């Protein structure tokens, strides 16, 4: 297949995207350098992330386990893979806290390639808390690679274990409603989060706290309290400003019959 290029090297139609990407990456890198120099931006509070400790504490008080899942996506997909990474970052924090307070943590897994990563994250968290002997590999459960096989297994897990907390952060599809509703029925405190726009309403109505869109990706940075990670979030604001300018300019120019923005974006 012949590829049309700009300047003989850049693929046509993707140059504008590349420029935007480089600007946002540059801004992110700039804010990270600023943080290294001691200038850390203030981060708005994320109620859903703040509630994770509360949910873990509640589960411990009730003597019930915690279920923490990172979604059903693989690590490979360009749009949903990063949600799995974000979910694993949250899992890492939850595992550390669960190990510290002595709560049982169950991790349902759909993708076989993610299972070793999840198991490694949890096992190391237990070892770092000095409780390596309390880690149980059978609590990192591969349920099914089939979407609804996973869903029915997860619901069964919720009904049998009756967890004190059910944390679901990652990419979910049609099973989101089933999981959140079942979690609600068993009385678990639920914290959810996804960037799948079609599933956000389900999580919003059926769980106690819901992380929406970009908050999912920020959760790991927020929980780590690492100045460099927090500073990287400020780079997103530059992207937001660019997006706003393009939307406003595009709307105005298209209204007066100009295709300038469209032409630039097609470059």
């Amino acid at each position, binding site marked *: 297949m012949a590829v049309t290029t700009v300047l003989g090297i850049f693929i046509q139609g993707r140059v504008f995207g590349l420029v935007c990407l480089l600007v946002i990456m540059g801004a992110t890198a700039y804010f990270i350098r600023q943080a290294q120099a001691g200038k850390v931006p203030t981060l708005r509070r994320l109620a859903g992330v703040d509630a994770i400790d509360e949910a873990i504490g509640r589960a411990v008080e009730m003597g019930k386990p915690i279920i923490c899942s990172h979604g059903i996506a693989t690590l490979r997909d360009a749009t949903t893979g990063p949600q799995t990474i974000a979910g694993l970052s949250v899992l890492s924090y939850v595992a550390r806290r669960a190990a510290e307070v002595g709560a049982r943590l169950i991790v349902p897994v759909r993708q076989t390639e993610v299972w070793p990563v999840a198991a490694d994250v949890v096992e*190391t968290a237990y070892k770092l808390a000095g409780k390596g002997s309390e880690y149980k590999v059978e609590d990192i459960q591969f349920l099914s690679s089939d979407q609804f096989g996973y869903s029915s297994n997860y619901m069964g897990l919720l009904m049998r274990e009756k967890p004190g907390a059910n944390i679901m952060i990652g990419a979910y599809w049609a099973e989101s409603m*089933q999981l959140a509703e079942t979690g609600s029925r068993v009385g678990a405190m639920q914290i959810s989060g996804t960037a799948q726009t079609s599933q956000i309403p389900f999580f919003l109505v059926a769980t106690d706290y819901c992380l929406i869109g970009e908050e999912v990706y920020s959760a790991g940075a927020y929980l780590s309290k690492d100045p460099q990670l927090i500073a990287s979030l400020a780079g997103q604001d530059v992207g937001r400003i660019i997006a706003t300018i393009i939307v406003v300019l595009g709307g105005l120019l298209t209204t007066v019959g100009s295709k300038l923005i469209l032409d630039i974006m097609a470059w």
Partner: protein
Amino acid sequence: MSNILRRIEIPIFLTIVFTLIQVVPYYVYIQPLDDAASYIQRWILIVLALATFVGVISILQVHGKNVAKRSKGWYFSVIVLVFTIVMALVGLPLAEVGLGDKNPVYLFLFNYMLQPLSGTMYSIIAFFIASAAFRAFRARNIEASIVLVSGLLMLISNAPLFTVFWPPFKTIGTWIFAVPNMATNRAITIGAALGLIALAVRTLMGIERGYLRGGGAEQ
């Protein structure tokens, strides 16, 4: 040697290199890099094929222990174990001996058990939505009232019983779907895309370590 292999820098380095090999050819046309990206895609298939065994091992660990300990509902674990083993055996890619995805037992299990069960699970979502809607659609405050009214209008606009008597219901529903809903949807999509880019930058710079063992902390 084993200590060197367990250093956290190794997975970070591999992540950076393989991410760049996949991302750069999307924007820049360099034939050898393009070939390398395609070649690595094949590696992924091999890793995935091997990872399948991880799933089987996990199932055997969890359900095998349930059966051995006669835990509550252990007989369900027996069913899982039997079907996992039968499906894996009859599905082996050995067409010469009648196994594989054309095997009648495999086809029976797939067409008459797995598919109907999967379809049933999918279809019962409607009932979950109904019970969640019953709890959520309450006019507790202004925001909840907007959700309630919008939801009702969307329901009405999709019900011929109402649109046949007053056709503008359809127009109202279409407007809610195409204007306020779409605007919000796009805002969330743009925000999520920016968050995704920031996550990618953090990963490429090696500072996003949450997905690594123990959040990237050295043991």
